[in-house]
């Protein structure tokens, strides 16, 4: 920052300290956000970002932490989310939190409804007002759309519209890009830049350094509950930012790819596969696709969210319907039409949605790992507890799941460790073919590196791996080759080469 006149701060959080029992979540965290800027806030999971944001949102009320908060230079005491909102702080949470049964307009107006519950609600007038508001702010939604019919990214954008409608002094976006495609991220950036032009102040929380360097005027890095680094745009240095964020030299994020053995046997052969669009029963998701997967190979399926990449995996796993085509596993075998038959033939799908489809959140790590093999662990209908524990322990140790406690509830693990448990669970089925869908979604960098290593090891031990990811660099680094799909068609094949990110992006967007 310049030594001249000090900038006016829209938001200051001073000497914030917060403990949970003996655990120190934040110690002396200072955050100053200059008015009219886009301020990046980065840090790994567990660095204290979400604690800081919960304090700012009034979720942890004033008095449960030390330190003070100033908005526009005035000290404010935030005792509830309503207080925070009244002070001009609008937080867009990372999880999609919208009311599905209401319309877009009703969602946006909800804060208004809460303030004036006794007023009549006139639907047509509300739709007219909100359509105007959406147009004015360049938000591509319609007021009368039912939110249940919106896509995930549209819901994300709706949440930003919700916050905007409150005319906030400070708009906080908590990892808004985690479920967006590159195009949608660009739309989001345009919205944020437009807000800056209108004089809004934005705090942008993210994992991704590239988003900081592209969008933000300042960046503050949080690590282990402390502010470790703060710098303005002119002094951004990508690798310095990464090192400060993870607190050590990154080393090689990606493992060295092993050479593929061109004589290895083909473990999966797909011919003219046409999969059903799960949202339009009977219609195809994309044109026919054919490919072979060899043992030891990591094959990427590249495409944007909604391109059909997940549907291909789910169809192979028999979760989605196959309309036509021929699929053989291992030694030219066909397999049945149900998921158990797919599993016993050696296929395993590791879902992108670990929260809903993947893990049992009311159970501990042990129960999650062994859930699918309980039959094998039972004697005369009773569970052999010792064997179960042993098995769970073996898996958690070999994958270095943290905490190293098989009785820990799965919900208390970080995203990265949950993902490891999910992969660990799949190992017990001893698949020939692993299909991983967004294995690093919502996972911090250190865990990503471990998951990359794991994927690499699976292939090195002879399994075939199919990888789907929105993070193109990791696809390019891990995969031997990538099949690209866009616009409902197979576009072509690309070698895994980190320098080809731009080409992959263009191809996956359906460009030439």
């Amino acid at each position, binding site marked *: 920052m310049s030594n001249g006149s000090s900038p006016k701060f829209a938001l200051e959080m001073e000497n914030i300290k917060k403990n949970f029992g003996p655990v120190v979540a934040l110690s002396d965290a200072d955050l100053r956000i200059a008015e009219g800027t886009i301020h990046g806030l980065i840090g790994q999971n567990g660095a204290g970002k979400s604690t800081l944001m919960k304090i700012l949102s009034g979720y942890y009320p004033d008095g449960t932490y030390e330190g003070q908060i100033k908005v526009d230079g005035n000290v404010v005491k935030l005792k509830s*989310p*309503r207080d925070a*909102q009244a002070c001009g702080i609008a*937080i867009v*949470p990372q*999880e999609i*939190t*919208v*009311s*599905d*049964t*209401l319309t877009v307009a*009703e*969602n946006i*107006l*909800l*804060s*208004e*409804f*809460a*303030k*004036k*519950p*006794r*007023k*009549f*609600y*006139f639907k047509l007038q509300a739709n007219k007002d909100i359509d105007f508001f959406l147009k004015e702010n360049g938000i591509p939604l319609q007021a009368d759309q039912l939110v*249940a019919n919106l896509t995930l990214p549209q819901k994300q954008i709706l949440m930003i519209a*919700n916050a905007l409608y409150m005319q906030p002094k400070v708009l906080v976006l908590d990892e808004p890009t985690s479920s967006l495609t590159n195009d949608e991220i660009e739309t989001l950036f345009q919205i944020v830049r437009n807000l800056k032009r209108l004089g809004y102040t934005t705090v942008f929380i993210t994992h991704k350094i590239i988003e900081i360097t592209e969008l933000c005027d300042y960046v503050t890095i949080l690590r282990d509950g402390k502010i470790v680094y703060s710098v303005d745009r002119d002094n951004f240095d990508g690798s310095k930012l990464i090192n400060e964020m993870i607190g050590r030299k990154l080393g090689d994020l990606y493992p060295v790819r092993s050479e593929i053995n061109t004589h290895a046997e083909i473990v999966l052969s797909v011919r003219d596969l046409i999969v059903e669009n799960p949202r339009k029963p009977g219609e195809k998701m994309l044109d026919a696709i054919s490919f072979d997967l060899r043992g030891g190979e990591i094959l990427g399926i590249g495409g944007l969210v909604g391109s059909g990449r997940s549907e291909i995996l789910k169809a192979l796993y028999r979760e989605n319907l196959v309309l036509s085509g021929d699929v053989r596993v291992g030694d030219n075998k066909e397999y049945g039409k149900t998921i158990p038959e797919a599993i016993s033939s050696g296929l395993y799908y590791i879902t992108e949605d670990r929260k809903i489809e993947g893990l049992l959140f009311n159970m501990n790590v042990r129960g999650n790992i062994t859930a699918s093999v309980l039959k094998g662990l039972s004697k005369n209908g009773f569970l052999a507890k010792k064997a179960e524990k042993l098995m769970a322990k073996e898996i958690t140790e070999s994958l270095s799941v943290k905490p190293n406690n098989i009785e820990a509830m799965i919900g208390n693990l970080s995203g990265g460790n949950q993902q490891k448990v999910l992969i660990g669970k799949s190992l017990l089925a001893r698949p020939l073919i692993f299909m991983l869908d967004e294995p690093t979604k919502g996972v911090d960098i250190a865990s990503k590196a471990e998951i990359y290593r794991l994927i690499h090891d699976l292939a090195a031990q002879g399994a075939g791996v199919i990888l789907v990811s929105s993070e193109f660099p990791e696809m390019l680094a891990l995969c031997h080759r990538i099949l690209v799909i866009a616009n409902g068609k197979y576009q072509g094949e690309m070698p895994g080469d980190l320098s080809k990110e731009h080409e992959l992006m263009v191809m996956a967007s359906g460009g030439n």
Partner: protein
Amino acid sequence: MKTLPKLKLSPLIKRLIFVLAIFGIFVLLKPSFASYDSVLAIVQGIVFVGISSVFLTLLITAGEFDISIGATSCLAAIVTGLLVTNQHMNLWLAILIGLFTGAIVGAINAVVVLYGNVPSFIASISMLFIARSVATYFSQAEAIENFPGLWHGFKESWIGQYFSIIVLIVLIIVGEIILNHTNFGKVVASIGSNKEAARIAGVNVIKTKFLLFIMCGVGAALSGVVAVIHFSSARNTLGSGWELYAIAGLVIGGTSLFGGRGTVIGLFIGLMLMQTIASGLVVANIDPWWQTVITGVIVLVSLGVDKKRKKIFVNEE
């Protein structure tokens, strides 16, 4: 060739047509069914359960339940009845106290659910037993009789004859306006749809639900009070089973039992449907034992009428 644009009917209109169709079938079977008297009898058959479940619709839309409405109605009827016939209390004061009883029952439900973290289904089942037992104790299981009219000559007046139906219609209109045409109603739906989203928008979820529990209790009590005025008597069996009819009526009418979407008019249509069948079967001389069977089947069938029936059971998509 161009296809004609499909006629789009709102779900409520579809349901209404369904009720009329059922009515029509019975008219074909027995032309005398199409009379003012039999329609009046149908409405009279649902009037008390209807009054007691208008505000239940709001509560369910907010994602909570109250199974105790019938028992609460009964308790309020007994309390008001005893105060007037035994204690000779001023009629209007007794009615106020009866309604207040409902408010207390609602408040207790609210405290247990919202502060005791007991699922509302469980809490209100307990309340169902408790309220009915208290009513039985107060009345010593004896019927209360000779409850007077609201004023001299009330029973003979036009208002007196249609009193309960007037209350029902007013309540339905008020309830529907509150639920779907006020900001408060949208807040209620947002709580049932996604509590967290409502909280972020600044909605005080606890306070709103507390209010809804009390409204539900008062609504149920109102039904009991209207019943004791209508019949001039009350028993400790008043209102038993209403909760099941209310829930069936809500489901048929298109209210989501998981919250987020509700309609009071739909509730009315749902109750009318069940009662039309019940009355129609009697008129058509079908063994009354079949009534409940057919009612059960109709609940299932009417779910099939709505193409988006999934939405009733699944909150998302």
